[in-house]
């Protein structure tokens, strides 16, 4: 059992949880994730490590309400327990001194990019962060990321805060202005990562994305999380989740993530009716 030490809503559909998990906290690195299960009947869902503290023996994850399981997760309170939390899973981000690194976070992906901003900065890079969301209320970690970045750009799709537009617009502009970018790391919704890949591709800028396929075990046992990178099948939970953006088949990923739409809808309806 894993205790929820604190829970804070960042907006009505996103919450941050600090969870007691000393073994995971000792090993956590930027870019890795955990898989959790709320209770006996629960499904296993992956969430990126947003933060961790070896001293406190805790990890922090940020979850966006996407369907039944995350909705149930968001309804849990401080002091309650999660049945299972396992990790840290996946390969850590390859953090080195590249020069100028652009960290792009979209939506809840901002919470996922935060530890990478910190790690790339600590490794001595000049870090440009670009974060964006649909609207002002969904923006998160702005102050934390600003504090760690050499430059920060903020966008909202509807223009309610920062610049109106997409994170990729800012990235394109930086490139057009002739800035020398050595690495781009992007985490966010599949369409966003796909666009980022297209923006950097013609310029040959190395670009890394963190993929979010449906997972079950997270240890390479089931093959549920398979993605195609450079025409080869890879298991995102053990070979990734980070891959070379220019090699990823994003359309396949998007199609595979729609496998259970019908069941997800049923689960949500059932939850709304009051789960037995």
């Amino acid at each position: 059992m894993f205790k929820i030490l604190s829970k804070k809503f960042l907006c009505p559909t996103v919450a941050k949880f600090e969870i007691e998990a000393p073994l995971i906290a000792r090993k956590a690195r930027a870019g890795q994730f955990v898989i959790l299960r709320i209770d006996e009947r629960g499904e296993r869902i992956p969430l990126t490590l947003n933060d961790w503290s070896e001293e406190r023996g805790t990890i922090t994850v940020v979850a966006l309400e996407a369907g039944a399981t995350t909705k149930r997760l968001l309804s849990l309170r401080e002091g309650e327990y999660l049945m299972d939390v396992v990790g840290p899973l996946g390969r850590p981000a390859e953090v080195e001194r590249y020069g100028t690194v652009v960290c792009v976070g979209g939506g809840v992906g901002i919470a996922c990019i935060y530890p990478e901003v910190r790690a790339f900065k600590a490794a001595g890079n000049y870090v440009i962060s670009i974060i964006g969301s649909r609207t002002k209320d969904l923006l998160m970690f702005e102050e934390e990321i600003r504090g760690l970045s050499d430059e920060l750009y903020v966008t909202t799709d509807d223009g309610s805060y920062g610049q109106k537009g997409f994170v990729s617009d800012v990235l394109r502009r930086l490139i057009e202005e002739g800035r020398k970018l050595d690495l781009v790391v992007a985490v966010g919704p599949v369409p966003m990562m796909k666009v980022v890949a297209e923006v950097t591709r013609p310029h040959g800028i190395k670009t890394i994305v963190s993929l979010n396929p449906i997972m079950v075990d997270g240890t390479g046992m089931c093959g549920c999380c398979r993605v195609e990178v450079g025409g080869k099948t890879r298991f995102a939970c053990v070979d990734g989740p980070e891959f070379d953006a220019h090699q990823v088949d994003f359309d396949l990923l998007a199609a595979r993530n729609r496998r259970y739409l019908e069941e997800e809808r049923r689960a949500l309806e059932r939850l709304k009716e009051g789960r037995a």
Partner: protein
Amino acid sequence: MTSRIVPKKYPMPEQDPKERIRNFREVPLGQDPETVKLEAARCLQCRPPKGKIVPPCVEGCPVGIDIPGFLALTREGRFEEAIALIKEKNALPAICGRVCPYENQCEGACTLGKKYEPVGIGRVERFLADWERARGFRVPARPPPTGKRVAVVGSGPAGLTAAAELARRGHAVTIFEALHAPGGVLVYGIPEFRLPKEIVFAEVEYVKSLGVELKLDVVVGKTVTLEELRREHDAVFIGTGAGLPNFMRIPGENLNGIYSANEFLTRSNLMKAYLFPEYDTPTKVGRRVATIGAGNVAMDCARTALRLGAEESYIVYRRSRAEMPARKEEIQRAEEEGVKFLLLTLPKRYIGDERGWVREVECVRMELGEPDESGRRRPVEIPGSEFRLQVDTVVVAIGQSPNPLVPATTPGLKTSRWGTILADEEGRTSLEGVWAGGDITTGEATVILAMGAGKRAAASIHEYLSGKPWPSDWKPVNA
């Protein structure tokens, strides 16, 4: 004795096929004590043949259970002593009595079986174990602690057996398991209708009652490293199994609706997707399901598909019936349930619809040519025989490879070119104080072989902890 030979096994009632394909309950229903006594009485109590020290059945059992011994006790109704005799060699009899390929092992070697049906050793073993479980296990007295600590990685049959054997000798044992439930393939792979999970958990409780500590949700190589376990323990046993699913690498294999056997079975068994939406994990089975492969795993998938609502469930296999590696009993049950066999058929590619779902599989017919290295006749394609099979769901059940996580994160731990961890006849690896056994050293094998390996390693670990030196001339037997 010969005058009283009973040529056939006493029948074991089974759920009717029409009924059972609509539920996940166990198929065979078990026998009553009187029938079991009669079955045990069929045994001829053979003496060891010339030059052997045990009767043929015992030689056929990978863990060497005293089979005539427990059958004689059973015949007299002395069930408690009979199960105790089994447990001297086998800590998990309720499981082996159900899933052992006994037709190739103890029963396959039985003298009676030469002319008649062999003694139903598996079903007697199963009865005794169930009888004992129903009355509640007696927890054996714990030996004085030795002060030695042993880490066991993985809670499949290899790990559970090694842990039980070591605890029984007074060592402090901790099992580290990656998943949220113990049992390995016994819980995530083999379906409920063949091995009720309640039985696995009862056997796990028994192992825990010996003093073994079980730590779930720990991925060795990620949450802790093997090196750390080595530092904190006097010995380590690795029983991480063959959990990496193989794919055929043919076009379209990543289309929606195509599962690995592991995913398909894990969703259904471990995550209880057959109870969706009461349980949160979904699974999706269309009207027409094709399972690729013909081993035990494939039979389990094809039969699970029926129970999840498939109207047509096909086994697609590139060789002929004679080469199918699954247990005969399971093939027969699959057939009774309506699974159809497309033999001498090889999938070449999958064809999907515009939304990315598999719709057809293109296959080619095969014929058997010259024997290959395995002695089986090699299947060769018949040119121009391509045809398409309509499918909504495909399960790829063509085998698993050894789990690479521990070797990949442990410097100095040697593996073969197939990825199995190299070990000597006692299970010792290339690292001092580290043993391995089960599917991780042999590749996909059987429950009883994994248990045998766990047991051998435990004996070797015990000797090491009692002062026997690590060999200076280590020679792996599975190179």
